[in-house]
């Protein structure tokens, strides 16, 4: 899959900004900075800006950390291929962040199960899970705390969406979407 970050805020189907680059720490910084600038200029509320910014960071870092075939760079940093897109729906004032990247079939099962387990939980229940996870430090590894999906679910106004497409044996293409 070719490397491709797309940041395109669509207002009434009009693309106002689009960025296409390889995903690494530098492009993540650049992309979320553009997202913040665009939302500030559009007059979005502080909470909306913070939620969209932080969900975007999580999704981009997930591509970096969990993509099948990501490359190791210097200083224990990574680079990966994937697609990231932000779209805006003026009806409801909602931003939808979508990411597409390759994952191993084993990883797909883990993610699918985690996303399913979050469906239908209210804010209080998600906060409780976050606090339990922080206390237990379960799934903590060198790049993350295993809290990414929970933090996104807390900020999301709808359930997290995930689907997979078979690419070849042992590898799937993952489509993840979060709306805030």
């Amino acid at each position: 899959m070719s490397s491709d970050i797309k940041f395109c805020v669509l207002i009434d189907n009009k693309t106002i900004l689009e960025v296409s680059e390889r995903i690494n720490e530098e492009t993540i910084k650049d992309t979320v900075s553009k997202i913040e600038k665009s939302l500030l200029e559009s007059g979005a509320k502080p909470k909306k800006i913070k939620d969209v910014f932080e969900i975007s960071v999580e999704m981009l870092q997930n591509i970096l950390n969990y993509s099948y075939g990501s490359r190791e760079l210097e200083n224990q940093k990574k680079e990966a291929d994937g697609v990231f897109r932000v779209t805006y729906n003026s009806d409801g004032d909602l931003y939808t962040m979508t990411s597409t990247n390759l994952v191993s079939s084993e990883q797909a099962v883990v993610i699918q199960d985690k996303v399913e387990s979050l469906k239908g939980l209210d804010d209080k229940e998600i906060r409780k899970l976050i606090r339990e996870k922080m206390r237990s430090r379960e799934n903590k590894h060198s790049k993350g705390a295993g809290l990414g999906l929970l933090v996104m679910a807390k900020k999301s106004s709808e359930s997290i969406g995930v689907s997979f497409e078979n690419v070849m044996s042992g590898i799937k293409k993952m489509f993840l979407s979060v709306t805030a």
Partner: protein
Amino acid sequence: VKSLNIEQSDNAPKVVLDFDNGLIEFAGSSFLENTFEFYEPIIEWLSSYFGGNAQDKTSVNFDLKYYNSATTQVLFDIFDLIQDGEYKELEINWYYDGDDEHGMEGYEDYADEFPELNIKAVAL
């Protein structure tokens, strides 16, 4: 304990660990790719400071704009370390955007989890 200062960058916070004045500060954004690696020397410093070397008065200030989930865990670990540590007079301030009606969301999780630390929310 020697003081330690880290300059702010686009995705790393400014960190002040001022031993002489008992001042500890985190300001800016924190969404580094290798978040835990960045905070390792900071956790080490805090372990030493709250391991019997705290000044008579300690002020800890958090003024973080954006942060990733790994930082959420690190902040929890810092509060946990302080709670289990040794200190005399302690003040912890959590600064948030006063224009944001939901600005205290991040604060509430830590304030509820560590009531003994009496973390104060301060609107900017």
